[in-house]
């Protein structure tokens, strides 16, 4: 099991998704995995670079990859958009030598060079494959028994198609949630998109997408929605207000990062996991957990 990774936080984890950053660092440290932040990383561009010039997009992602290569470690991205950009930049550069030569010509200005030796992983893959559910389960101190969680993958973790994952119904998120004692609910829309940047460029469409996701979470009787991408978390949580106004609904579904939930199960205090920074308080769901937790060995509902 690899113990050390180069860590690419991404712009939103600096402030907007600070709790994702805090909980990621805390949980990995607790599980003996060291995330070494990339030195002087730059923004991955989410999707907008490719609207202007794809070579620009490759250069900006390649710069981060080249910095990671200097550390000799695989790079881990908590945000799905950064992960997708870096993964496919590495893939394209490896496949097209002319492109790689041109991008490396640009990287020379920052004395960097991309060879393609770096592996690119999403943070959840570290928990699902490197650490693995068994190891995770063994480290659980306060299992989240009885907490019904909707595992929300979003679109960029398994799409576009890489080689191994099942694109329509992966299960690794559910395995993680079961490992920490929670009950992953059957969440039919777990692969549907949260709207991403459409929240700005086409708000009505994005709000309706968020509404469907929330409606489905409520219908699946989920106490909380776990996500692995800061963009999804913002769309689902920060705009719940506007969804309620737009569609006359009264959703108040807590949207948490999967690392926060793992942190709770590992017994890390809520403060350190950035719990309390949410718009929709997670506390009621967690309170119920406290009483449930108090009651000895409650049978976990499957």
């Amino acid at each position, binding site marked *: 099991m690899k113990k050390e990774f180069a860590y690419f936080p991404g*712009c939103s984890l*600096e*402030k*907007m*998704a*600070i709790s994702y950053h805090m909980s990621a660092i805390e949980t990995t440290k607790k599980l003996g995995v060291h995330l070494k932040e990339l030195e*002087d*990383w*730059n*923004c991955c*561009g989410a*999707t*907008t*670079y*490719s*609207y*202007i*010039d*794809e*070579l*620009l997009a490759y*250069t900006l992602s390649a*710069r981060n990859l080249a910095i990671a290569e200097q550390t000799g470690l695989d790079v881990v991205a908590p945000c799905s958009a950064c992960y997708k950009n870096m993964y496919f930049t590495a893939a*394209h550069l490896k496949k097209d030598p002319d492109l790689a030569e*041109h*991008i490396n*010509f*640009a990287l020379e*200005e*920052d*004395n960097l060079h991309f060879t393609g030796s770096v592996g690119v992983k999403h943070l959840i893959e570290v928990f699902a494959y490197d650490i693995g559910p068994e190891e995770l389960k063994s480290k659980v101190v306060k299992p989240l028994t009885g907490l019904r969680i909707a595992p929300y993958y979003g*679109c*960029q973790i398994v*799409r*576009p*198609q890489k080689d191994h994952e099942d*694109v329509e119904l992966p299960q690794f998120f559910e395995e993680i949630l079961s490992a920490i004692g929670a009950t992953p609910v059957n969440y039919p829309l777990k*692969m*549907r*998109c949260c*709207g*991403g*940047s*459409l929240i*700005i*460029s*086409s*708000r*009505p*469409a*994005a709000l*309706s*997408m968020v509404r469907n996701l929330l409606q489905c979470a409520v219908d699946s009787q989920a106490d909380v929605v776990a996500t692995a991408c800061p963009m999804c978390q913002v769309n689902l949580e*920060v*705009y719940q*207000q*506007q969804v309620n*106004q737009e569609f006359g609904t009264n959703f108040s579904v807590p949207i948490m990062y999967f690392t926060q939930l793992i942190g709770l199960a590992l017994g890390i205090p809520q403060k350190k996991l950035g719990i309390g*920074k949410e*718009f929709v308080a997670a506390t009621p769901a967690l309170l119920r957990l406290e009483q449930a937790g108090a009651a000895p060995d409650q049978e976990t509902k499957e």
Partner: protein
Amino acid sequence: MSETISFRQEVANLLYASEGEPLNTCIQCGTCSGTCPVAPYMDYTPRQIIAMINQGMKEQVLESNTFWYCASCYHCTVRCPQDINITDLMYALKRYSIWKGQHKEGLIGPTFSEAFVKMIVRTGRSFEPVLAPSYIFSFGMRELLLEVQGATELLLKGRLPLLPSRIKRLDNFKRMLGRIIPMGGLE
């Protein structure tokens, strides 16, 4: 060489990744439009856009909001029975529309993405508040209020980025970009 090329070939030239012309093989089955979460909000569904490209309807395609409403979630690309990368097509149409400066009135997408890239080229990191002016004015009063309310809540929760961050080796960064896009102002 033929006198000129069709709009379909122009789009194929943009889709560098695939050899030949991928759009030829579209059987108009509708899987992409059936899957697309944003299709109901689009002037034309992704399938219709492919049909229009194949028939050279350049003006109507560029005037449509379809490719600006694409959330790039890749669900269509993964399900297409003819292995066409429809998401790449939407990216290519965005590039084409920006280079030509030709797109539908009142779309926030183009101005927002131009502002976003301009910001990154200057600081290397994104700083949301600087992007607000690019879309806030096209909002109605109600949305404006909601947006401000959201921003204040973020502030209270300590989640609103206040100071724009930038990368250390900014000059190298700018010269690096200058080697890709040879424009001034990147000294």
